[in-house]
Structures are given as structure tokens and as C-alpha cells.
């Protein structure tokens, strides 16, 4: 570790092209194509930014912005880019296993890298930033606030998450990623068995994004606790806000175990400590416990916000109040608490006593109770509602049916005796994809379709939206339901080759499903493209295209930087729906006040770049650079604290002018009923529906 040169242990062998020249085969071609996609992607982005002269606007309006809405959108863009990579990796893996008995076209190491990056990316750099992006955008709008509690910290969180995600992209071009799975269990990932750079990429990406995630959790929790509009009592919060509170609590308590575990692994690898090594008293069970002490709450911190999205979607598109609000709140908090009591079910087979396994098995099954309450509440919301089968609702229905199957397979796995049979098989892979795709991903896509007109002022294309839903649903079922069967037949997960010919038909179906999922991803992009092309026909400047119920729909689309010209007074749950029923939906304010908003700052971007360089230096043992960048990060942060004038004032007169222009627009717009929801005349003013069912 000491005899390293100016560039540490970085040399030409680290670049995949060297491998291709020395040994041209299918495996190297796949690796080089992936590296080429990254490089071409960077060239295209940089080139088009330069060609269209967008560097200035990008810097002024986006990268330095502390506006929660812009930060939210950047999170989502980042998540979708990473989603593309994660899906492609999934397709390659399914293709490898579909080749048939034998070794396929990938090398074993390469396959191991694929499932490691696929898991790491999908959890930390797709699901988390997508959830945070939507929450960032919505939370202040839903509670009637002008921004999150700590706008600049929000920007820093985004910077850290993105720089950590970029490390995974860099690992495609320089060196290799870990082969230890997304869980990176030592001692396999320790220095003795894995001296290369792979686990180091994993460690630093996890540590840095973990810091960003923790800060976001603190930010959301404080925002919801402290910045609610007057009258917005806890039991008047939209359901989505409740799920974000629970997620934030999970983040605040569950991210530290991950950080601790990753840093201890780093100490083992870099400084020759003995936390998890095989010799001198190291104990890998500490790692397993720490990792899953984080890992299980993590899945709930991802799925709870999706539950929140579904709650909003079911209520709006059934034109009804959400059924069983109180029970949903209680169920959400129960899930949040119970999620900390079940981590051991991830390693039933690792040598605990039968009693301990039984306790954790029962605790795991208990989670099905509050989740079941939720499923029934959603169905009761639909019951006798005036349902519109819009895109978010279709995602919701697909979720209701598929997610219950996934949840039940989880209850099966919660039984330790069953788990002994199917652990480490594709049955488990089928289970968690069955909860993560219909649960988290469909929820996020439903939210994306639902709130897109709020963020950009025009609706997404309904036709392509429906095709996308169908492709995701069918693709999911074809890909993952067969894996239940091969799992029960005994096919281990993460195997790059297999021998039993009876697996083959299932593997063929699964790869076809993977291609359908790929086309679903393309369909998402086509939908966006078509929607942007036809945007003049779908504009909703008044702001309420779906006859929705919560505060964010009571303001213009897209909202002004300060969100609310005048902070609303909340008198009801579903305040906007109640105001519409009373005919007081768009009040004319008596007076306007100066609004102070956070100024732009470059600190988030600075820390993003510096932390990226810092991670790279640590991975490749370029010590002088690591020390230098550490000093620069500290210095830039300290210097930033010397800037005290962080607010700028928007004068009341300007707010009045903008708001009155919008109110004129509201008065001149024609209200549309729900039968014309997707027609061009829907400008975002809803006609009161038939008798609202409560």
C-alpha cells in the first residue's frame, strides 16, 4: 500500500480497452461497450451544452439554485439516467442466464460486477434519488411552505448523491467495480480476498451518498415538523407527508449503521484494522448485523413514500376522500417502527439459535398487518368512487394486484424453516423485485405522471403513458414471476452459469420479459418526447388538471419560485378540495408581503466536484490528492459560513403583479369536467364534480 507512484495504483491496465486489445472476446466487448456508452454520453452532453450555449443558464438557473423545486427535478433526472444503466445491466444478466446450460458469454467476474452495480445503483442511485426528488418538489408545496428548512443543505445533499453515483459511472471506465454484491459482505470484500479497487469504489460511493441521504432526512423531518402553514395540524397533513416523515425518521436512525459498516470495512482495507477479518479477532457477523440494521429500514424508507403517492393518486382519481386516513397514519408509523425489529431475517441461516430466528420471523410477519390495513384502505377508497383510469391510477391498480403477491411471498420467506430451503435462490430475487418494482418504481412513475403538470405546466401524453404502464406490468410479470419457480426448483441467485436443463424455459421467458422492461424504459422516454412536442395542447397554467385535493394544486403550474404568494390558512384535511366545494378556491389576497428567498450559491456544486475527486483519489491511493481535496472541502465549507447575506428579497409589488396576472387567468379559464380531463381544453381549472362522496 505504500509503494505507490504519483497516480497511486492507477495505470493503463485499469482501462478496459487494454483488456480488449490483449484478449478480444464477447466479455471484453460488453465491458468496452459500457465504457464507450459512458464516454459518448459525456461527450454528447458536454457538446450539446456548448453548442446550444447552455452552460450559463445551467449554472445560474440550476446548479447554483437552492430552490427545492429545481433540486427535486435534478434528483429525478439523475435517477432516470441511473435507471437506464440499471435496467441495461439487468437485461445483460438475464441474457447471460438465458444462453442455456454452460458458461454464457460473460466472464464470472464480469457477471459478479453486474449484479453488484445493478443492486447498488437501483437502491442508492435510482430509488433513493427518485424518492427524494419527488419529496423535495412536493413537501413544501403540500404543507404550505416556501422552501425546505435548509435549502443550501439540500443542494449539498444533491451534490454528494450525484458525485457518489458518478463514481459508479467512473468505475466502468477506470478499473472495476466490486464483485461482492450490493451488500459487500466481508471477509470476501476485505483486503485479503479482494485487494483490487472494486470494493473501494463501493465503500466511498456508499459513504458519500449516505451522508447526503442523512442530511436530506434531517431536512425533510425538520421541514414537516416546523414549517407547516398555519392550521396545518398533523392530522391534516396529506398522507404523502406522513410517509415522508416516517421515511425521514428511518433515514435519521438507519443511515448511521450503513456509514459505520462501510467505514469499518474501509479501516480494514486501508489501515489493516481487524473489524471483519478472519484473523486476530475480526467478526464478520458484526458487519451482517450493521448492514441489515440499515438494510431493512431502507426498503421501507423507499416503499413508504410510494405508498404515500398511491394514497394521493387513489383519492384524486376516485374523486373521493382517502378512506381510513387515521388508520393509514397509524399503519405507516407502525411499519416505520417494526422495520427496525426484523433485520435478522436477512441472515436466518447464519447460525443464530432457533428461538432468535423465530422471534425475528414473527416480527417480520407482523409487518404484513399494517401493510394489509393499507391495501384495504386503498381498496375502500376506490369503492364507490368515480374512478378515472388515468395513467397514475393504472399504475396504482397494477401495484395493488402485483404488490400483494410480492408481500405474500415475503410472509413465506419470513418463516425461518422455509427460508432455509429457498434462501440464496432466485425465489428471493423474485420476491424483492416483486415488492420493489410494483411497490417503489410503479409508485414513483405514478407520481411522475401525476405531478408532472404541476412541475412543468403541461400534462404528459396519456396514450404513451398507458402503453408504458402495460409494458412495465407485462415486462415485470414475464421477468420475475418465472424466477419464483426456478427458485423453488433450487436455482441459486447470482450464478453466472447453471447446468440443469429444466431451468432453461423459465430463463427464456425471463429474458423476453427483460426486453419488454427495456421497451418500457424506452416508452418512458418516448412519452416524455411526445409530451414535450405537443406541450402547447396540454398546458395547464391554472394548476389543477386532475380536480385534486391538496394544497400544491391551488397554485399556478409551474409554481413561482416563492410557491405561495400568500401563505394559506389551512382549515381542513384536503384543504383545496374543501375550498373548491365551498367555492372559495382562488381567493384574492388582501395584502402582499415582501418574500425573502435563499440566494443562489455554488457550495453544493463545489462539494459535488471536490467529493468526486476525493473518492477517486482514495480509490486509487493517490494520497497527496486526497489530502489536498480534504483540505479544500473543509476550506470551501468554512469560507461559505462567512457569507451571512444568504437571502434575497422579492418585493411585494412584484409578487402582487404575478399573482394577479394568474388570478385573471383563473377567472378567464373555462372549467372542465372530468370527462374532458385529457382534452386540450383542460387548462387546469376543474369544474366541481357530481356530489363529492365523503
Amino acid at each position, binding site marked *: 500500500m505504500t509503494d505507490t507512484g504519483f497516480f497511486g495504483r492507477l495505470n493503463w491496465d485499469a482501462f478496459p480497452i487494454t483488456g480488449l486489445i490483449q484478449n478480444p472476446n464477447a466479455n471484453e466487448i460488453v465491458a468496452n461497450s459500457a465504457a464507450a456508452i459512458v464516454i459518448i454520453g459525456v461527450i454528447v452532453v458536454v457538446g450539446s451544452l456548448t453548442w446550444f450555449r447552455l452552460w450559463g443558464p445551467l449554472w445560474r438557473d440550476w446548479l447554483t439554485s437552492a430552490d427545492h423545486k429545481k433540486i427535486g427535478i435534478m434528483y429525478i433526472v439523475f435517477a432516470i439516467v441511473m435507471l437506464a444503466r440499471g435496467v441495461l445491466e439487468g437485461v445483460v444478466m438475464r441474457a447471460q442466464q438465458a444462453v442455456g446450460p454452460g458458461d454464457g458469454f460473460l466472464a464470472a467476474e464480469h457477471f459478479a460486477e453486474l449484479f453488484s452495480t445493478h443492486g447498488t445503483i437501483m437502491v442508492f442511485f435510482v430509488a433513493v434519488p427518485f424518492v427524494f426528488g419527488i419529496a423535495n418538489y412536493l413537501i413544501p408545496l403540500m404543507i404550505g411552505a416556501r422552501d425546505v428548512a435548509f435549502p443550501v443543505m439540500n443542494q449539498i445533499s444533491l451534490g454528494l448523491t450525484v458525485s457518489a453515483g458518478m463514481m459508479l459511472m467512473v468505475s466502468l471506465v477506470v478499473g472495476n467495480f466490486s464483485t461482492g454484491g450490493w451488500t459487500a459482505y466481508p471477509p470476501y470484500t476485505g483486503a485479503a480476498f479482494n485487494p483490487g479497487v472494486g470494493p473501494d469504489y463501493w465503500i466511498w460511493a456508499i459513504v458519500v451518498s449516505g451522508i447526503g441521504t442523512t442530511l436530506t432526512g434531517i431536512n425533510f423531518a425538520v421541514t414537516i415538523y416546523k414549517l407547516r402553514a398555519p392550521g396545518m395540524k398533523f392530522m391534516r397533513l396529506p398522507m404523502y407527508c406522513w410517509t415522508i416523515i416516517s421515511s425521514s425518521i428511518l433515514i435519521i436512525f438507519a443511515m448511521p449503521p450503513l456509514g459505520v459498516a462501510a467505514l469499518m470495512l474501509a479501516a480494514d482495507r486501508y489501515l489493516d484494522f481487524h*473489524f471483519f477479518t478472519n484473523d486476530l479477532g475480526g467478526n464478520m457477523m458484526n458487519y451482517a448485523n450493521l448492514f441489515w440494521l440499515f438494510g431493512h429500514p431502507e426498503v421501507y424508507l423507499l416503499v413508504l413514500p410510494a405508498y404515500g403517492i398511491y394514497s394521493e393518486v387513489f383519492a384524486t382519481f376516485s374523486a373521493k376522500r382517502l378512506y381510513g386516513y387515521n388508520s393509514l397514519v397509524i399503519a405507516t408509523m407502525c411499519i416505520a417502527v417494526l422495520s427496525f425489529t426484523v433485520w435478522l431475517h436477512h441472515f436466518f441461516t447464519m447460525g443464530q439459535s432457533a428461538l432468535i430466528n423465530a422471534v425475528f420471523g414473527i416480527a417480520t410477519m407482523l409487518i404484513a398487518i399494517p401493510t394489509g390495513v393499507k391495501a384495504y384502505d386503498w381498496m375502500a377508497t376506490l369503492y364507490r368512487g368515480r374512478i378515472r383510469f388515468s395513467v397514475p391510477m393504472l399504475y396504482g391498480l397494477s401495484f395493488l394486484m402485483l404488490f400483494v403477491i410480492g408481500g405474500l411471498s415475503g410472509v413465506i420467506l419470513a418463516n425461518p424453516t422455509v427460508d432455509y430451503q429457498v434462501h440464496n435462490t432466485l425465489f428471493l430475487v423474485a420476491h424483492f423485485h416483486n415488492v420493489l418494482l410494483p411497490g417503489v418504481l410503479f409508485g414513483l412513475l405514478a407520481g411522475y405522471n401525476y405531478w408532472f403538470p404541476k412541475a412543468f405546466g403541461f400534462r404528459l401524453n396519456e396514450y404513451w403513458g398507458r402503453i408504458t404502464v402495460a409494458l412495465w406490468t407485462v415486462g415485470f410479470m414475464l421477468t420475475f414471476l418465472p424466477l419464483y419457480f426456478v427458485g423453488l426448483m433450487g436455482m441459486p441467485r447470482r450464478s453466472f452459469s447453471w447446468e440443469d436443463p429444466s431451468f432453461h424455459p423459465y430463463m427464456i421467458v425471463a429474458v423476453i420479459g427483460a426486453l419488454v422492461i427495456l421497451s418500457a424504459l424506452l416508452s418512458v422516454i418516448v412519452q416524455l418526447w411526445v409530451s414535450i412536442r405537443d406541450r402547447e395542447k396540454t398546458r395547464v397554467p391554472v394548476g389543477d388538471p386532475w380536480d385534486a385535493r391538496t394544497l400544491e394544486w391551488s397554485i399556478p403550474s409551474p409554481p413561482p419560485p416563492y410557491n405561495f404568494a400568500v401563505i394559506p390558512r389551512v382549515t381542513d384535511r384536503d384543504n383545496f378540495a374543501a375550498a373548491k366545494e365551498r367555492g372559495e378556491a382562488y381567493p384574492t389576497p388582501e395584502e402582499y408581503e415582501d418574500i425573502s428567498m435563499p440566494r443562489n450559491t455554488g457550495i453544493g456544486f463545489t462539494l459535488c466536484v471536490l467529493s468526486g475527486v476525493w473518492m477517486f483519489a482514495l480509490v486509487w491511493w493517490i494520497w497527496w490528492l486526497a489530502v489536498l481535496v480534504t483540505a479544500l472541502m473543509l476550506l470551501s465549507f468554512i469560507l461559505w459560513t462567512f457569507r451571512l447575506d444568504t437571502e434575497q428579497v422579492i418585493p411585494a409589488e412584484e409578487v402582487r403583479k404575478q399573482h394577479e396576472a394568474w388570478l385573471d387567468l383563473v377567472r378567464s379559464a373555462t372549467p372542465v369536467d372530468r370527462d374532458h380531463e385529457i382534452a386540450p381544453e383542460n387548462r387546469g381549472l376543474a369544474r366541481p364534480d357530481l356530489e363529492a362522496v365523503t
Partner: protein
Amino acid sequence: MKRAPTHSYPGLNLGRRHASADQAAEVVTFGFWVFLMSDLVYFGLMFAIYITMIDAQAGGPGPHELFDLYSIFAQTLILLTSSLTVGLAMLALKYNLPRWRIVFWFCVTLVLGLCFLVLEIRDFMAMAEQGGIPQRSGFLSAFYGLVPLHGLHVAAGCVWLIVLGIQLRMFGLTDLLMSRVVRLALFWHFLDLIWIGIITIVYFGGLTYG
């Protein structure tokens, strides 16, 4: 956001007409409490790891050979006194005493913090002389994962004292800086709390069960 506060933020002299400043101070301070809670989980886990690894000495030196309770006693006195001096800075803020009083108590706290760090590093060096280095055993890895983590926090607190002292000299007692004083004081008391855990679990616990 506009809810009128019923009373001003305790311990800060933000003045009667500073309702929004009080609100801002409350949000920021609450956020800092939440951060400390998360940080506390870090320490809690490191304590747990230490306890599980107390027997993993792998034939290397253990607590009885390595721990010097006289030095720990001195460090405890120094750190607890520094908590008192940070408290005196807070009282100076609360009772509108001149600004130099706050900076003065910051300086005293800084000196005490640095003394603590010097003693702690001396301890580590003495341990290393007897073979007590983190590479020797799981037990020592756990020790060096926990106690220097606290030391690192103290060092960060010292940097913060210097930076905030300079800012107080430069800008005077603005609302923002006053709320930073509150947060720094919270942080410093938090370090004391962790230290009490360390002497109880790491040192006394180690000597009792190790």
C-alpha cells in the same frame, strides 16, 4: 411558517421585534438536535461494536495493560470544565454581556479542548509503545474506531470555536451568529455526554470485563 411564536427562543436575545428571527433560530436549532440524534446513533453503534469485541484480544494487550486511569481522570476533568466554560459563554449571550466575554470563554474552551486532545494523543502513543495498535486485534480496532472518533469530534469542535470566534469579531452578534453559538454549545455538551459513555463503557467496562 408564519405562525406567530408565543415566546422568543430561550437563551437568545433576539429581541421583541424579531419574531421571524426567533422562528428561524428554532428551526435551525431543532434541526441541529436531530443531527446530533443521528450522530449519537453512530456512537451507539461503535459502543455496541466495542462491547462485542471486548474479548477479541487475540493474545494481544488488553485493557489492564493499556489503560491509564490517571490520564483518563485528567481528561475527564478538563472536558467537563470546558463544558462549564461553554456554558459561561452561553450565559454571557443570555445576559447581554459584552461580546468579548463570549469570545473570552470561547478561548478558554478552546485551550481546554486542545489540552484534552494532547492528553488523548499522549495516551495513544503510550498504548502504541506497549503494542496497543489497532492492527493488533479486533478489540484494539474497536477501541481505535470509537475513542479517536470522539477525539475527531473534539477537534472539529475546536475548529468551529476558532471560526465562530473570528466571525463574532468580524460581524458582531447577528441573529445568525447567535444561533450558531447555541448550536456550538449543544455540540460541545454532546461531546461531554459521549465522553461519559466512553469512560463508563470503554475504560471502566473494559477493565471490569476485559
